[in-house]
């Protein structure tokens, strides 16, 4: 056997081994999906029925989506909050990032350091004052308040600033000579150039906001305002012993992320690899 065949064989063996490991790694998801298709009596049978004997898909998902605790409402809440937060956060961060990188003003440097320094503050260290503030200005228990909490992202500003710095100053200088102000330069030159970076950040922000559990838990109280994450937990408490329904709810809460992830897979992975960013 020559060198090349040996390495092909070795690579194939490794692929098979890794495949086995990855299936083991994903078993909780497989179990979740298969349980969501079953009738309740079959949930804990052993050996595990990976492929359900009795299918109960439509009934289970119908109960989750349109039963006593209808998921479509919470879905709508989550979609609303996540989409608005993502858009707002991208706008605020892109504006600030442009300001900090492409506008020459004396205070800018210091302001940037202050903004960046706040990144060191763990969110849990300021929860209590935020809660008090929200109670006193009426932002508590409202979607607006929740949206505001994640719309001023230091991380997004820092990430996008890196990309704006890569935009050549010649473009901006020549636009200025042509009489364009910063507003027009931002809209027509700088922003289009960094659009891929904004897209990456937007996908990450979408995932983080959709999955956020702590903020809704603390800043929302009324049932009808719940996000999907809070609803999931409430649903589990109510349906304590109905594991097939709980799993159908869990599957439902993950599906939008899977879709977003499959569409934006490349930019998510690149974004994370690039800055090693984390929510």
């Amino acid at each position, binding site marked *: 056997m020559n060198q090349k065949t040996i390495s092909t064989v070795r690579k194939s063996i490794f*692929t098979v081994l890794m495949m086995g490991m990855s299936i083991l790694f994903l078993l*909780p998801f497989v179990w979740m999906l298969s349980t969501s298709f079953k009738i309740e009596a079959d949930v804990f049978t052993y050996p595990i029925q990976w492929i359900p004997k009795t299918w109960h898909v439509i009934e289970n998902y119908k109960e989750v989506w349109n039963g006593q605790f209808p998921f479509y409402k919470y879905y709508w809440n989550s979609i609303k909050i996540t989409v608005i937060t993502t858009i707002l956060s991208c706008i605020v961060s892109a504006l600030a990032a442009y300001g900090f990188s492409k506008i020459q003003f004396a205070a800018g440097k210091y302001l940037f350091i202050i903004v960046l320094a706040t990144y060191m503050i763990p969110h*849990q260290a300021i*929860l*209590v*004052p935020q*809660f008090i503030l929200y109670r006193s200005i009426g932002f508590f228990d409202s979607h607006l308040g929740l949206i505001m909490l994640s719309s001023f992202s230091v991380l997004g500003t820092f990430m996008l600033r890196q990309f704006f710095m890569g935009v050549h100053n010649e473009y901006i200088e020549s636009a200025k000579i042509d009489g364009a102000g910063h507003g027009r330069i931002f809209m027509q030159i700088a922003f289009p150039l960094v659009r891929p970076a904004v897209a990456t950040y937007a996908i990450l922000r979408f995932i983080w906001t*959709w999955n956020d559990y702590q903020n809704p838990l603390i800043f929302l109280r009324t049932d009808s305002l719940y996000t999907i994450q809070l609803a999931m937990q409430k649903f589990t408490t109510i349906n304590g012993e109905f594991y097939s329904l709980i799993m159908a709810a869990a599957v439902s809460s993950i599906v939008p992320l899977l879709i977003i992830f499959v569409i934006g897979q490349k930019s998510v992975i690149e974004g994370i690899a690039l800055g090693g960013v984390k929510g």
Partner: protein
Amino acid sequence: MNPLQETTAKPKMSDKQKLTAKRSSGAIQRKETLAGFLFVGPMLIGVTVLTLLPILATFALSLADWNFIAGFDGLKWVGFDNFERLAKDAAFLKSLKNNAYFLLTVPAYLAVSMFLAIMIDKHVYLKSYFKVAYFMPYISSIVAVAIVWQVLFHPSAGPVNQLLLALGIENPPKWIADPKYALPSLMMITVWTAIGFNMIVYIAGLQSIPRDLYEAADIDGANAWVKFKSITFPQLSSTSFFLLVTGIISTFKVFDLIAILTKGGPLSSTSMIVWYLYDTAFVNLKIGYASSMAVVLFACVLLITLLQWASQKKWVNY
């Protein structure tokens, strides 16, 4: 460049600069400053109102004894009493200890992630599949993930224990219902969810290692272990360092899993700083006492960040 050329070029440049400076001084610079503030304004206001003022308030409140329900009249300044109480509070010390245990998750998932990254980067086919597969737990909502594990770990009927019973293990642990195993169970789930993120960063790190290092090692006849020990591992040191620091900081923030799975129990075996803080502030409404914990939390994270800055050069070797 010829030094003579440089000196002749310099005055020209500064002449030009002076000219533009003269033209742009005053009105134009003022316009520029205004534009600057308009662009960074929204972010600045948000950060000031939602982060800077709150952190100052946290410091102030940590010196007070205050029950939120009582209104501002009920606020009493007590100096450093809260911190003295914290130092003697068995529940807080227990939480700190659990935080310390939790640090073990970081090297565990770093090792697994590095191994997987090396395998995926060079030694397997279907790379994209593997990246997505191991990344799944990271993008899945922590609530869904926690609930699945809750059922999997069910003491009597859960698939995990049924498997263990079938394998002939007589008294399998009760996992999250057992004070001895609850924290390790949470740590296992954390490792499982953290692998994806760390692996992706490691893959990026691997791709930036110059290929000729490996080629040179091949010529010297180095085996896989030697290549790992003397090229891959040292070349990944800056990535590892970065992941170690962010990993340590994230262990201080663990909350979601505890809130969903154990609520700090059983017997406060899974209580950690942030959980105890949350419980004190939002369940028992002791705002001042909770704020003193927030200060400790902030101090821990700050200390690690400063240590990171100080030691980066020493640790990262190439």
